[in-house]
């Protein structure tokens, strides 16, 4: 039995934060139905990213929406809205990522939906919460990285604020939404009661920084100071960071500077006998290491360091990654197929259940691809509805 077998999710969300949450639910066995506008659908379909497209749609859309179904409905059309309400009566989860007030205008806010279906779990994710001066602003990943201080944690001190190059806010908010939905479903299994789950991207990206923010709250509100040399983490001592070698790059995590100096033959490090200096003088130490490590190849250094159980790794790109035995053994790649036969290679769910990898074969849906099927299956057409009753 799949973990979320027989859980029906009605998903109004677009782009990444909400859809990444429903992707995880689908991965674990839920039936996810995307409700999309008949003219264009999920805006992400049209979001041509870089110059790579699959079926004329962005690669990103296909990555996010595998294993889901699509029902096209114009929520401003009363007939369509009634169909959707019938589907909601049968749903376990209703989720959206509209800005505050939009679902109220459509007539599918929590209060209304709860009357249709008292045991429903209603989940919403937005940019900045329901209160405060930013509540109506767009919840976009880079903008959230900008306002949350996150951009001051990566890259070297002399560099400008640097965003993380993956949509980390969307992804964190999506995982928090999933956690909330599953928690509410668990509670429903105990009490029979549904619930309202709310997540904002702002709260999620603050939670992501919980270790370093707690430091800031309690250290007299000092700002983070990034290392000037190969910065890896603003709050961690030398040697933490990535170093250029004669033929590539080497990552060094936490380690004893004296031991490192000896192993690597970097004699000036022997002077740093007080371990407190490994933080306070980290830039000096790291510069010495940086100069020294350029004199040998990555493989040569790794041979020395791994033998001594030093925390180190080569720094590799995707071309090198996919050749690694450790990568291949994970079987992280899956191929999903759209209904018109297009095969797309993507990654699978990272969670394993009872020793099994969770894979999927169904690709992202065409806009409205499952409208008829879902109307039949859930009795959404007026004729079928009366037949059911």
């Amino acid at each position, binding site marked *: 039995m799949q973990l979320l077998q027989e859980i029906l999710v009605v998903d109004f969300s677009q782009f990444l934060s909400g859809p990444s949450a429903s992707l995880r639910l689908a991965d674990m066995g839920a039936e996810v139905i995307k409700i999309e506008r008949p003219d264009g659908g999920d805006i992400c379909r049209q979001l041509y990213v870089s*110059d790579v497209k699959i079926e004329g749609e962005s690669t990103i859309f296909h990555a996010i929406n595998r294993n889901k179904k699509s029902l096209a409905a114009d929520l401003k059309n009363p007939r369509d809205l009634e169909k959707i309400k019938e589907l909601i009566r049968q749903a376990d989860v209703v989720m959206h990522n509209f800005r505050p007030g939009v679902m109220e205008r459509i007539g599918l806010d929590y209060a209304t939906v709860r009357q249709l279906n008292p045991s429903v779990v209603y989940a919403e994710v937005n940019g900045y919460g329901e209160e405060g001066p930013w509540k109506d602003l767009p919840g976009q990943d880079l903008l959230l990285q900008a306002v949350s201080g996150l951009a001051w944690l990566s890259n070297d001190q002399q560099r400008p604020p640097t965003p993380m190059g993956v949509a980390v806010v969307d992804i964190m908010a999506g995982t928090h939404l999933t*956690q909330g939905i599953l928690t509410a479903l668990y509670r429903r299994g105990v009490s029979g009661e549904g619930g309202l789950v709310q997540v904002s991207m702002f709260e999620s990206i603050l939670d992501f920084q919980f270790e370093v923010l707690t430091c800031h709250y309690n250290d007299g509100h000092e700002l983070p100071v990034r290392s000037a040399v190969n910065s890896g983490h603003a709050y961690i001592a030398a040697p933490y960071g990535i170093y250029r070698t004669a033929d590539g790059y080497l990552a060094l995590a936490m380690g004893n500077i004296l031991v490192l100096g000896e192993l690597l033959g970097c004699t000036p490090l022997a002077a740093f006998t007080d371990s407190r200096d490994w933080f306070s003088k980290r830039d000096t130490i790291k510069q010495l290491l940086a100069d020294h490590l350029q004199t040998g190849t990555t493989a040569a250094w790794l041979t020395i360091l791994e033998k001594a159980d030093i925390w180190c790794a080569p720094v590799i790109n995707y071309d090198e990654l996919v050749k690694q035995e450790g990568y291949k053994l994970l079987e992280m790649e899956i191929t999903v197929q759209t209904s018109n036969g297009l095969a797309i290679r993507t990654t699978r769910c990272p969670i394993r259940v009872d020793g099994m990898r969770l894979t999927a074969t169904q690709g992202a849906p065409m806009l409205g691809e499952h409208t008829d099927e879902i109307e039949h299956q859930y009795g959404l057409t007026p004729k079928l509805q009366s037949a059911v009753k």
Partner: protein
Amino acid sequence: MNARPLDGLVVLEFSQYLSAPSAGLRLADLGARVIKIERPGTGDAGRKLAIKNLWADDNSLLFHTINRNKESFTANLKDPEELALVQKLIQKADVLIHNFRPGVMEKTGLGFDALSALNPRLIYAEISGYGNAGPWKNKPGQDLLLQSLTGLTYTTGDADQQPVPFGIAIADILCGAQLVQGILAALIRRQKNGQGALIQASLMESLLDFQFELLTTYYADGRQPQRSAVNNGHTLLSAPYGLYRTADGYLALAMMDIQVMGEALEHPSLLRFNGDQVFSERDSIKQEIATLLATKPTAYWLQKLQARGLWAMEVLNWQQMREHDAYKALQMEQTVHALGKDFVTTRCPVRIDGQRFTSSRPAPQLGEHRERIIEELINPS
């Protein structure tokens, strides 16, 4: 204290540092009773791991941050009598979490097979660095190493820079979050079929999943992600995406139509670019924007952009952020009462039925709840 959605669940945490303890923290926030099982004498190595030499008591502030609102039970797992106690406790538990290297729990007699025989309803959840097989299985599951081995460091920083890591323990946090999702979904299944489950996540798989958009694009075209040479924001996105210096600070520009942007900024020369050029010529376009934005303060540009509904925000540091009403409205901070002193930390980011989940309970002292746990769970009268 109000009722919480996971009230009544007992979670045993055999874990250290961040990945698995961050999963335990989320379950505790949502109402589970989370008990750390620790070695007598030392306990979780995270107790002595401090940043900026900040301590709440004998334990670091960092440890309290990650382990607040949990209990501690000390047991020497090599002593058969102590192990028997822990096994009794496991019979009462709903969830077990660990992040030992592959094989360690099995050697102690606490592997999945042994424990599911002992308690068939148990959700057994484990975190590894790289999965349980392969050449890396005994490699330390450390965040920076995982970033380096998954290609992630080639997504951040400008094109002329060497690989740049994320300055937060991204692999640990994501993997902890994945584990929580698996545990909760398994608890839902258990409500239907009465069966426990084995849930496994690794730092490596979590970081690959995190890059699913980039990897799917890479699998399709075989080209390395290319960082922008000017204010890189995201390898797949067109100009103007990135952070820009202004006369008095920095401004973030997300996706926007370059024509509308040119009009909003009253900079007609941007109008000469079309929709195809914003990706193929993004560096030269971004350089032109960077030169323009450096001439006036952030507020000047922000007003013009937001008036047209364009996606822009100021770049704030934590001090500026904390003074902002938008931050205050979240009520994200909470005070925890540690033995030595009170400290402020963040709360759980998930709200249910409008409730913000807070708790003033600190991390446990080593073995603090042993007697109580024996009384309440192991030998209830």
